[in-house]
């Protein structure tokens, strides 16, 4: 049928793993944000969910790093992390290999993408699924953009990837939902963890909400690294989501929570 839902959200492991260490009201605001996003997702009755992730070396490494990858399996497993550390239970997630194959074939008309018949989910996909599909019902198609091992996928290619996903989704009969997941500014897994550049985040979210392609693609990685940290490179997932949706974004919540190491965000975007 077409693309029926687009959203973005944070995936930081602290959101679940250090859940109780945040001020209660901030934690509750974020969790309510995920609940709102989940309700919006469920309302669109999707047949499958594409998650555009910025994975953290669960599958891809510098021996053979793809700019873009999509899963093409009937099932996936996660999280790879210690389940007690992440506090997200292990699960087997349904895939949709045949649908993946059709979507990948369509994307390949314009964007070179690696396909993967094996894929292990890390917190980058499992934390969003924990909130957005707690019943483990939705078939999932994982997608990845290299936001970790430089040279990174250029921002304008992230846009092209999202645009290709949109065109591919519009060619299949199934109802496709899409969630991009990443941080805005953050310095994860370093001693700086907890540093958040709220002004930078709000400026980025404003550009994202207006779906201002030129403004989003004008960022340079040197500037992102300086002002938004290595975690800021994950804006690629937000940019792809915007390219797919083509509409305006609605930020459900933006809550800087230092112990979770990120300005925690949930948002949906109008599809036009």
């Amino acid at each position, binding site marked *: 049928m077409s693309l029926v839902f687009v959203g973005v959200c944070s995936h930081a492991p602290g959101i679940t793993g250090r859940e109780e260490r945040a001020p209660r009201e901030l934690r509750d605001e974020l969790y309510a944000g995920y609940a709102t996003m989940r309700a919006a997702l469920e309302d669109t009755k999707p047949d499958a969910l594409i998650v555009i992730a910025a994975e953290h070396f669960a599958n891809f490494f510098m021996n053979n790093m793809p700019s873009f990858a999509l899963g093409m399996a009937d099932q996936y497993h996660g999280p790879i992390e210690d389940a007690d550390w992440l506090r997200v239970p292990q699960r087997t997630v349904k895939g949709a290999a045949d649908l993946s194959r059709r979507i990948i074939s369509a994307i390949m008309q314009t964007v070179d993408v690696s396909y993967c018949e094996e894929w292990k989910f890390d917190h980058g996909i499992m934390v969003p699924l924990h909130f957005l599909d707690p019943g483990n019902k939705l078939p999932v198609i994982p997608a990845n953009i290299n936001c970790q091992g430089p040279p990174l996928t250029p921002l304008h290619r992230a846009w092209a990837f999202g645009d290709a996903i949109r065109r591919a989704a519009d060619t299949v009969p199934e109802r496709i939902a899409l969630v991009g997941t990443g941080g805005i500014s953050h310095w994860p897994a*370093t001693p700086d963890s907890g540093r958040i550049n709220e002004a930078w985040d709000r400026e980025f979210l404003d550009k994202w909400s207006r779906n201002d392609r030129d403004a989003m693609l004008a960022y340079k990685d040197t500037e992102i690294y300086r002002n938004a940290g290595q975690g800021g490179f994950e804006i690629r997932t937000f940019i792809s989501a915007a390219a797919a949706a083509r509409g305006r974004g609605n930020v459900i919540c933006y809550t800087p929570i230092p112990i979770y190491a990120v300005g925690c965000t949930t948002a949906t975007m109008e599809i036009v």
Partner: protein
Amino acid sequence: MSLYQLSKLMFDLNRDNAVKEAFRADPRQVIVKYDLDDEERRAIMDPDIGLLYVLGVNGQLLMHYAALLGIEWSDYLQRMRDGVKMHGPVRAGIYTMTTSPDEKVAG
């Protein structure tokens, strides 16, 4: 200097349960398969999280490695700060420290 090999070891530990089990049973039997120098071997065997951080291991790998060792979050952050104090600034990669070793941002 073989940061790639050191990182590869952590990548394998990160995702492969068989490697995890072998490492828990006898880390020396696992690390011989990677082309590491003495400092890197020492950092793994101690284990010296601070030194691994300074050597430039990507934080996303190091965070998971620390979790595998059962190191609590705040302790993990402190070990990196201590590492920079002891061994100097991060030598490679994109996970450098922008705060001072005596500064605690969160956790």
